[in-house]
């Protein structure tokens, strides 16, 4: 029978060892008594006590030897949960080489993921210039053949949406393999609101932010920007005059709430707009995959997104992300 647990192997070995030792000791004491009959009947409490102490010490050593595995397990779990990028700490001589190999493997994998992500980004960027040219050519066709022009434009837009969607996913997957450093939420939100106020300057919106400055989220900064950017851009596109952004910590998660005073989304459409490629209204330009990207990114980090009605009159988006 093969013993799978290290602990049982250890115990089994110690029992066999002790039994062998006892057998030899028994033989030796028989010989000793035969040689020196005067020793018969002598008892030593001290010897029994010393023997007990030695057994306890042995037991403690054995336990401590195995105890190294418990922190190793915790640190591995931290790597998996993206709280650390490498397995840290010093381990017994037999375990340390394994840990070193594991760390080398993790570093190599991270490099490979980074390379793949860079390739994806390069591909996406290189695709966009020809797509831009194609779009321009299509626009020039408008006068001669408006239907063809419209068809080409729509297909180019679809291709762009897919490129953007998969690029965001590739980046998120790559940052998922590294440790997701804590990002300062209030600072990123302020940067994005600055951007929104420029991009939607024509609408003259009032953008309100109320986020405690100390709030941190365990999300890579690029991914946090992508989620907040898509949600705020949507809100600004639809709002009549007001967009509000707030956040608070609820237990281990951070709840980010984005609201606008636009027309909102009908309840039966809400589940659908979170799916890929669905746009609630085709009349506004923009990627139909915007909300889908946010949902995917949120889920990648173990978060979620919920849509409901806002007291402002429009849509209320609740984005749940892990706090740090």
């Amino acid at each position, binding site marked *: 029978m093969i013993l799978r647990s290290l602990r049982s192997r250890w115990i089994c070995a110690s029992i066999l060892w002790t039994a062998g030792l006892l057998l030899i000791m028994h033989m030796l004491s028989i010989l000793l008594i035969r040689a020196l009959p005067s020793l018969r009947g002598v008892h030593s409490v001290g010897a029994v006590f010393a023997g007990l102490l030695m057994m306890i010490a042995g037991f403690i050593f054995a336990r401590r030897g195995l105890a190294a595995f418990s922190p190793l397990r915790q640190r591995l779990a931290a790597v998996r949960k993206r709280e650390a990028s490498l397995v840290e700490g010093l381990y017994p001589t037999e375990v340390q080489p394994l840990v070193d190999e594991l760390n080398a493997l993790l570093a190599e994998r991270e490099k490979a993921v980074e390379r793949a992500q860079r390739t994806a980004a390069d591909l996406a960027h290189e695709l966009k210039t020809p797509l831009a040219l194609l779009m321009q050519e299509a626009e020039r066709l408008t006068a001669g053949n408006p239907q063809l022009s419209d068809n080409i434009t729509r297909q180019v837009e679809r291709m762009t949406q897919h490129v953007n969607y998969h690029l965001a996913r590739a980046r998120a997957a790559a940052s998922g393999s590294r440790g997701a450093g804590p990002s300062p939420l209030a600072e990123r939100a302020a940067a994005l609101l600055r*951007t929104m106020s420029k991009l939607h300057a024509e609408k003259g919106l009032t953008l309100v932010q109320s986020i405690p400055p100390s709030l941190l989220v365990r999300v890579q900064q690029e991914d946090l*920007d992508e989620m907040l950017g898509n949600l705020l851009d949507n809100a600004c596109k639809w709002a009549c005059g007001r967009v509000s952004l707030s956040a608070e910590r609820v237990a281990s998660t951070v709840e980010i709430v984005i609201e606008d005073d636009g027309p909102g989304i009908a309840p039966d459409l809400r589940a659908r707009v979170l799916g890929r490629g669905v746009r609630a209204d085709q009349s506004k330009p923009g990627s139909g995959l915007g909300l889908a990207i946010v949902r995917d990114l949120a889920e990648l980090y173990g978060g979620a997104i919920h849509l409901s009605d806002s007291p402002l009159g429009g849509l209320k988006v609740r984005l749940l992300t892990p706090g740090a």
Partner: protein
Amino acid sequence: MRVLIVEDEASLARQLWASFSEAGYAVDTAPGGQQADLLVHSETYDAILLDLGLPGVDGLTLLRRWRRSGIATPVLILTARGSWHEKVEGIDGGADDYVAKPFRVEEVLARIRALIRRTAGIVQSELRCGALSLDTSAARVTLDGAVVKLTSHEYRVLAYLMHHRRRVVSRTELTEHIYAQDFDRDSNTVEVFIARLRRKLGAEFIQTVRGLGYRIAGEDI
């Protein structure tokens, strides 16, 4: 109105040049960072379209340098980099607007128009002066509701004066904003365009302020 297009992809630059010229702008193009830097320091533009992935100097580095040296010309970034993180970087680097490739020229034209208007402190897209009205989105001028046919240079002179109607515009300033860099300026002077505009619109709309330049008469915009 005069714009600079900084774009390294030649065919895209050509198409943008054609679309902007058609819309009534004087257009210069620069295929790389160095050329753009030279032009921005030697010429005067009303708006700049800036690609980020340029050979030589990166567009964002260029923009930050311009802003540090006090060049406040409105800049619209036109780039393949479309993530929100990159948009934030662009805006914080000093850009006034950001459009990701691929784009509709119509949208870029509308955004540049709005940018120029906002810089001049004007809210609506149609500029009025009594019976005279200039629709920037259609590049069309009407007098008492009837369309007035103008050449592209005449249109640029009138558009520039109407965008800056609260002040007197000097002849040099007008010259800087209506010609593309490679245009032969001597044969078509500002005076000639002003005279032709007065003939077409009536003498009362454009006043000459002796020794200083020109201004549009009247109060309402």
